[in-house]
């Protein structure tokens, strides 16, 4: 029946929201509790300016000045953790859509039931997408409670932090969809896992490299294919959401899931 597998997945995986989202929220509150003085973010910014740009980029920071403000500081610290956590979660969740059950031999039971293969992918994907949104939102909840931990004279613009949290979602959904795609074409879990990990790490590195080379170089061109480039957590706090990036990432994610349903339909189950 329609939706059963979606509900089943939520029933067994909703606790992940607590583990991942709750963990992030606590981390965020810890970061915010450090900031007892406006000088803290400024000192951090000055210190970071001494670092080579490539290194800052490795932490997802394109401009050290962006963290000189309290909003910038919180979003930098919190959203960097959020990005990394959600990228890892994207792979973990992506493998849970088909790869884990196929690897364990459970697909034999599941696919002998009156349910088409594509619906297993679609319903589980929907469930995990919801979980990922909830994790990002729980991180924002952490930021919200974090504001009670800082002195009154430090003002924090929660709406900017909210946008920053929202912006975590499209990029991680794309990595999630890419993992589903790898699992749909490779029947061996280890190959799917390796491919997804290589994509996450590869595009992370690509993104760092692209930032330090000139704009007309091939490396810069390649960098445009890095999902991480479009996470753009800092620029969200400075400039607001980039809707082109968001729509692009979401379309890519949907496209990958659509291709996955076709690829998974066509091949032998291991």
């Amino acid at each position: 029946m329609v939706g059963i597998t979606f509900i089943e997945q939520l029933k067994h995986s909703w606790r992940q929201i607590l583990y991942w989202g709750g963990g992030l929220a606590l981390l965020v509150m810890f970061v915010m509790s450090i900031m007892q003085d406006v000088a803290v973010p400024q000192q951090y910014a000055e210190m970071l300016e001494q670092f080579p740009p490539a290194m800052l980029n490795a932490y997802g920071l394109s401009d050290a000045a962006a963290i000189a403000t309290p909003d910038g500081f919180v979003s930098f610290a919190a959203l960097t953790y959020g990005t990394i956590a959600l990228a890892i979660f994207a792979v973990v969740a992506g493998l849970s859509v088909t790869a884990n059950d196929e690897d364990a031999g459970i697909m034999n039971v599941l696919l002998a039931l009156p349910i088409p293969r594509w619906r297993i992918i679609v319903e589980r994907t929907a469930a995990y997408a919801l979980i990922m949104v909830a994790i990002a939102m729980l991180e924002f909840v952490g930021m919200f409670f974090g504001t009670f931990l800082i002195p009154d004279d430090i003002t924090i613009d929660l709406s900017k932090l909210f946008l920053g949290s929202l912006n975590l979602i499209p990029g991680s959904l794309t990595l999630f969809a890419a993992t589903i795609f790898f699992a749909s074409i490779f029947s061996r879990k280890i190959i799917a896992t390796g491919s997804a990990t290589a994509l996450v790490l590869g595009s992370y590195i690509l993104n760092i490299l692209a930032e330090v080379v000139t704009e007309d170089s091939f490396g810069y061109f390649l960098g445009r294919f890095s999902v991480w480039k479009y996470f753009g957590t800092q620029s969200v706090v400075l400039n607001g959401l980039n809707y082109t990036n968001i729509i692009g990432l979401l379309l890519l994610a949907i496209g990958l899931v659509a291709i996955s349903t076709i690829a998974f339909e066509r091949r032998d189950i291991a």
Partner: protein
Amino acid sequence: MSNQQVIQTQALSKVYKSGKKETLVLDNLTLDIHKGEIFGYLGPNGAGKTTTIRLLLDLIRPTGGSATILGKDIRADSVEIHRRIGFLPGELALWKNRTATQVINYIASVRGGVQQQMKEATTLADRLKFDMTKKVRDYSSGNKRKLGLILAMMHNPELLILDEPTGGLDPLMQQIFHEMMLEVRAQGRTVFLSSHVLSEVQAICDRVGILRDGALKAVEDVATLTHVKFRTVEMTFRDAVPQAWLPQIEAIEGASDIETDTHTLTVTLMGDFDPLMRIVSEGYLKNLRVHEPTLEEIFLAYYGNGAVVQSQSSQKPLSGFHRASHKIVK
């Protein structure tokens, strides 16, 4: 016409490719399973039984040929077919952290009609003495098999496809399983089960197909086969077996495969004992053993060794029995 055939395969073949290597695992399987029968799909490990079943369930795709289940195409109508069949995999894997009740509930809800299936599952669990409250990881292999049977049977499907169903079940449970299969048949439903255990197939199946190295060697009524009455007689004498007996024994109608080993004499015998006993009566007989043939030996006698035959009715002449030196079963 085809609605009496529950499963029909037409030159169904499967080649596994890994890199450049290709292995033919199922070779042009053409087989009909009739409504209301218990069919035993018999073959040693690696014969291709599981491959056949996975093809029928649309888990893997044929390299050649086609098949229908309940008149529907296994590829195009797989969802509809799956609604009407129950499947027990050879190696049942389920979510380890969920309880049997949770698994049963989920699978029932995917099929639809949860309440009815839960009721049936409870009845089956009682009968199999199965405790549904534990987590999957905590069940022994025998209990997992029971859970698999419950999952396969709780929606009263028209066709049961069971891959080595009794592996891991203790003798008492095997007996209960046999009874359950006979009830399924009595209700006009159909069972297709694979096995490498001849005695089990002999005990409950109406027909049996023998698969070896991906090729169907024979399909026959179990009744026809077990109707053939012959047995192996092994006699041990105190003194050496006189060579003079041998031509006399050979002359007995229905005696074959005569072997001697100083003190022992082995004869495969069809027909009465008396002619044999008269010949050996002058010797001092220390021990006498009569060995009823297994289905395997009957098969070998019936078809000769490795003959590729698919006969549903024709009676083959019983020429020259072969001692079952070739094991069908591992």
